């Protein structure tokens, strides 16, 4: 197993290399470069200023040279400096990553606590009223875009009940309760949008598993319904659900960008959004590097968890 994990970690390198290349190039394909944006704030700038700034930021060199300089820095642990703020990208990432991680983690907990019980319930009571309600809810959550739901949650409670979600960020270790009060609303919304697919998958898999011969064997032994689900069905049914959760990890990042913007959470999503608007190339590349590593690590964790869920995998 350890050899397997090491092998998988080594395989990360080429994937990340190509991902960074694509991000690097696509950023430069966006019309309007960083210099234009900087000069736009300054009416009296001339053509000479432009050349000067370009040289100062190292943007006068050919793109491939810029890339090699960047990747060379990355290999030495240097992610470069923000073009706008003169702050090391690594510092910005360190400041924002834990916040987004917290949001994602809370959302995942919400997603699982909603999706698994309802999915199991839906399967056990197939084609009853409860099942239809659960499935309709899931379809609704799939259809409603997150940004729209987020806006609704921002606007309507304040109109109706003069209550609005907390929008002031407090670091977790300063005041956990205040922090959670702020994070919980975006986490619930993000979690709910994730739970839709997971719930349907859980339902489908449970229905599939409940038809299996070994479930009949368990019933023939006198196992009751609760234990039947918990001990005999759930672990078999969860194997594909775990895969799905791994596949949803990038979605979580995308969702974080939207909800961090709406609920003013100073996480990596917000950092990315700003950086893209400002064409802050090193920051964008840095964020995508972290996202890439994160997604790949999550998928690795998913693969490793098969070993725990499925003894056949463990013995190979």
């Amino acid at each position, binding site marked *: 197993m350890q050899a397997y994990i090491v092998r998988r970690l080594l395989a990360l390198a080429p994937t990340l290399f190509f991902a960074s290349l694509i991000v690097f190039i696509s950023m430069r394909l966006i019309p309007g470069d960083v210099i234009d944006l900087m000069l736009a704030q300054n009416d009296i700038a001339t053509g000479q200023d432009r050349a000067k700034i370009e040289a100062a930021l190292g943007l006068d060199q050919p793109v491939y040279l810029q890339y090699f300089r960047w990747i060379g820095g990355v290999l030495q642990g240097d992610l470069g400096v923000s073009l706008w703020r003169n702050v090391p990208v690594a510092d910005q990432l360190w400041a924002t990553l834990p916040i987004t991680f917290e949001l994602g983690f809370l959302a995942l907990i919400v997603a699982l606590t909603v999706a698994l019980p309802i999915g199991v319930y839906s399967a056990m009571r197939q084609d009853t009223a409860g099942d239809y309600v659960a499935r309709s809810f899931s379809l609704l959550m799939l259809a409603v875009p997150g940004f729209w739901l987020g806006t609704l949650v921002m606007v309507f409670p304040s109109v109706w009940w003069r209550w609005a979600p907390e929008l002031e960020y407090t670091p977790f270790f300063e005041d956990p309760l205040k922090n959670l009060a702020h994070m919980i609303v975006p986490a619930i919304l993000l979690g709910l949008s994730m739970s839709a697919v997971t719930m349907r998958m859980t339902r489908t898999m449970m229905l599939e598993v409940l038809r*299996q*011969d*070994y479930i*009949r*064997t*368990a*019933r*023939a*032994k*006198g*196992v*009751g319904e609760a234990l039947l689900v918990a*001990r*005999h069905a759930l*672990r*078999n049914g969860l194997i594909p659900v775990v895969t799905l959760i791994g596949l949803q990890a990038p979605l979580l990042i995308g969702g974080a960008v939207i909800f961090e913007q709406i609920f003013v959470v100073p996480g990596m999503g917000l950092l990315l959004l700003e950086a893209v608007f400002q064409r802050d190339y090193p920051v964008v590349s840095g964020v995508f590097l972290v996202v890439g590593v994160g997604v790949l690590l999550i998928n690795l964790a998913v693969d490793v968890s098969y070993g725990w*869920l*499925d*003894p*056949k995998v463990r*013995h190979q």
Partner: protein
Amino acid sequence: MDPAPLLDISGLCVSFRTDRGLVRAVQDVSLQVRAGETLAIVGESGSGKSVTALSILRLLGEAGRVDAGRIVFDGEDLLALEDRAIRAIRGDRIAMIFQEPMSSLNPVLTIGMQVAEPIRLHRNAPWKDAYERAGELLERVRIPDAAGRLGDYPHQLSGGMRQRVMIAMALACRPRLIIADEPTTALDVTVQAQILELLKELTRQANSALILITHDLGVVARYADRVAVMYAGSIVETAPARALYAAPAHPYTRGLMASIPSIDGAIGARLPTIDGQPPDLARLPPGCAFALRCPHVFETCRATPPALMEAGTAGHLRACHLDADAAGAAVQERT
């Protein structure tokens, strides 16, 4: 007068919801099993033998429904019990062994856990004691190095070994009745005999009754005390195993017997078969279900379904119009 049988099924009718509407899978089946006895239920696929067996423990699933009949086990009507009460009987006083050892064991649980589970459930034993007992049971079904294999998963065992695990699981609470639904169909021929011997030996030791469901009349001869032959959802003949072999009374049973290859049959001779196909349960003929394939069919067969009646010797019943008067007369003579 016989003492009350351990299991008494009377007038059982079971139907299934299918895409083509309600299909009657079991029609007016009555069976008795005495304590310690082995009853074989023989028939081809779709004859209703497995459905009858599943009805006993109420394991038919969503689509199946018992329309009529009673199943009395040890004085209790199983069909009338609360869910909790039937669960208390499952795996404790009545255990079941299924056909497919490959898919009937849970792939993510160790065999030790699966064998120990009924002991834990019904005897309320701590896991440690239940595991210990599971080790003994695996030893009794002759799994080599039994104690060391408690932590194995089903995929690490061969088909024959898995069926041994199923038997150990069934024996765990010393049930009064074991229902084995084609326990050897999925196994290699060489392993089949071993498993049946083991099953027979262990049920005899435990003084459990056994319902052995099979399509193999050869198996019946060696292991059963009594036999019930099913066709298209009904019992067409039932008799003590010896009597059935000595004088099969139903044309279907005779056809089945004739189609068993014999060791002293002529080399190169074609094995006799029963012409035609089993009838569609959704569209049974009005008379005898076997009429379409029966070599002796006559007018009455197509119009009236035959009832089970004494055929010659005591305890030998058949459902057939053929020579009904003669068979009845034979019974009259003896009494």
